[in-house]
């Protein structure tokens, strides 16, 4: 089939305004958009800039706006776009470095803010810490996250509130908050319990809609909200935010 890529182009060091270039090629229906982009670079315009690495939805490098929807170029096949015209633009809400490449620094900074690592007060035991399959299952979907930034780019809150942590960082926070091995619930909830934190999320659900790993991000952020809400109620009676519950969240 004949595929035409309409690609956003900008080199901020040389131009002040972006423009769009069109590249046409014959492609098999099961080819990835990433394949087409590579062919543009290899056969038509070597100067086109975009990121890619694993090519099958594990590394999260090639997130971009595909016909207006955030997604991975390696996960979308050309047959999904039967009209043959595919518009490719950089992830929104991020500064463009060149063409489809955006500055992910703010994304990683927010991810760091949620302390994305296991925190325990005790000496590591001799064997593994025990965790039941049901305790493990709580965050099974969340660890599918590949930090591709599609959800955060799609989130309508970020343009209005640049300090909002965004769905990816919040999902990471959920993953550790609900890990039965983690003992820093209180610390984690203090980070989350604010408008730039979990309360910034208004439940639009675009994160869930675009997630390339089919994670119901909204659901897990909702679960985090409930945890904080319950802690607030408990604090109301105890004059304290929360005692450490060791990750055992509400059912």
């Amino acid at each position, binding site marked *: 089939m004949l595929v035409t890529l309409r690609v956003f182009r900008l*080199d*901020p*060091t*040389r131009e002040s305004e972006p423009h769009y270039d069109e590249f046409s090629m014959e492609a098999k229906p*099961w080819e*990835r958009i990433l394949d087409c982009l590579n062919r543009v*670079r*290899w056969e038509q315009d*070597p*100067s*086109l*800039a975009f*990121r*890619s*690495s*694993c*090519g*099958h*939805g*594990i*590394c*999260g*490098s090639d997130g971009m706006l595909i016909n207006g929807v955030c997604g991975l170029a390696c*996960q979308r*096949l050309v047959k999904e776009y039967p009209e043959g015209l595919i518009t490719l633009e950089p992830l929104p809400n991020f*500064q463009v*470095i*060149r*063409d489809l*490449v955006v*500055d992910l*620094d703010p994304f*990683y*900074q927010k991810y*760091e803010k949620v*302390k*994305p*690592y*296991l925190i325990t007060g005790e000496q*590591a035991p*001799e*064997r*593994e*810490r*025990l*965790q*039941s*399959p049901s305790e*493990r299952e709580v965050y*099974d979907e969340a*660890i*599918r996250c*590949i*930090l591709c930034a599609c959800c955060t780019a799609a989130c309508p809150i970020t343009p209005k509130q640049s300090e909002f942590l965004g769905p990816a960082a919040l999902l990471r926070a959920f*993953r*550790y908050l609900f*890990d039965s*091995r*983690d003992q820093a619930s209180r610390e984690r909830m203090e980070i989350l319990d604010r408008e730039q934190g979990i309360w910034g999320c208004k439940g639009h659900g675009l994160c869930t809609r675009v997630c390339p790993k*089919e994670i119901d991000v909204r659901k897990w952020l909702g679960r985090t909200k409930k945890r904080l809400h319950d802690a607030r109620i408990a604090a109301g009676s105890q004059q304290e935010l929360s005692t450490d519950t060791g990750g055992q969240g509400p059912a």
Partner: protein
Amino acid sequence: MLGWPYWKKNSSWRIALEKFHDALIIGSGMAGLRAAVELAQETSVAVVSKVFPTRSHSGAAQGGITAALGNEEEDHWEWHMFDTVKGSDYLADQDAVEIMVRDAPRAILELEHMGVPFSRNHRGLIAQRAFGGHTRDFGKAPVKRACYASDRTGRVIVDTLYEQCLKMGVVFYPEFLLLDLIFQKQRCVGAWLLDISRGEALRVWAKSVLIATGGAGRLFRTTSNCFGNTGDGLAVVLCHGIPLQDMEFVQFHPTGLRGVGILLSEAARGEGGVLRNGLGERFMARYAPQILDLAPRDIVSRAILKEIREGRGVEGQPYVHLDLTGLGEKRIKERLWEVASFARIYGGVDASLEPIPVEPTCHYFMGGIPTDPDGRVLGDGKQSPVQGLFAAGECACVSVHGANRLGCNSLLDLVVFGRRAAKAMAECIKEAPDLPPQDMGEPHKPERLQKLLQARGPETVPGIRQDLQGLLMDHCSVFRDEKGLLAALEGVLELQQRFTRLGLGGGGRSFDLEVVEALELEHMLVVARVVVESALCRKESRGAHFREDHPQRNDALFLKHTLVFYDGQEVRIDWKPVKITRFPPKERTY
């Protein structure tokens, strides 16, 4: 901490600031990150990566990581050691294998303590599953030895290690490509890097340097590897007169998704999936009657291609079926979510209802930079360590995988030897001379970069690369013979000539992927050359290296490691003995 600005206006090809660190780690896959975690406890560590750390190729590892934990059934490190040695077709150094398998339970528990979300069994312990070539009681029956996190084991370990690095303040240079190593008085003192994002060369000085740049699967047309696996570290080290070891041993994973080569984890067979030919037969019964579909990868890959050659591919086409339909939707969702998702997205197949079309795909390089068990790079390949230079991971050859690696042993290799290399680096840093003073004046940029920027010939990067990948695929993959290898060698030499007539668009700015790919291609050509030359001189069949003109293993002549040197023109081959401690070579059947 991403401690650098992303782009600056008016960037051009100029020297950026120099950087100084105690330890410089090149490569942010699992070996590099594990080493960084270890070193960050006491020194200033910088990690360089062509991509963002969490996007390294280790993340694509799906099935698991081995350790004789015995969480599901009886297991012992001696069994693990035997399997690894036998799997390697007796080419692994047994002292190194013993170090690895004895350290395995500790290494896994340590990962768990760091927070890796392993799947759990009903007792709350780390769950384990069967994988190819892992057996109980020295080969009697399959054993559950692979610790896993669903089928995204690599990704969650990489994430966890990266997160530990963040906690410990490791400095990252993401999107930097290795251009060259810097030596002073025969001591490695740093590296030249290309800052891809700014289009600048950067010089980093360090008291010790770890090469952890991974494999070179991109040499082949069909591969499970990411675009970045172009053998950068291998080529750069080779060009400094250091040999590479056992480069003829290139593993093909039996179950790459047909056409695209995307990996479908061996866990699929570990969980009960079976391979079927065009007649619907479970054909592995012919090749490995005892452990069937859980035979090691070299054997299964050859079996698949043999079925196809003899006309039993599916519908006469060059592929077979991986059948998961007996597993049930629930088990697939729980343990093989990614596998099912790849089959659905890229193959249009619902794995719980239909078989998945598969073919062998280039997956792993058993050979690499020769090191001792503490990651010290051996300058002569045998015993003389290069001061300040270390290697770990797929780019290194300590040699625990010999002629064929067993599934899930690679992740173990990364965390065990990544850590050991880091400990040796910490010692090296203590005794290292001081770094040069900050103001060194404007140095010469690496010549190869200058040359490429001015290259205006008729040849293109994609043209040469495509020919290279075809050449290796056709003549140097699962089946090899002298005629084909000679054709491959002639072809690679011609491609090296063509590379000198390369033409680029001028470059000189941020994200100039044409320049990046030209540098990578230069690496690929060098590595391809030594792969082919090594394969030519090993006139026997062992593990993944199968010579149709020499179909038997020949211990009398070839129970030894290959060392290949390259002086920029000619290749020289040397050999060194295999270290055999516990298990003398026997015929290898399953």
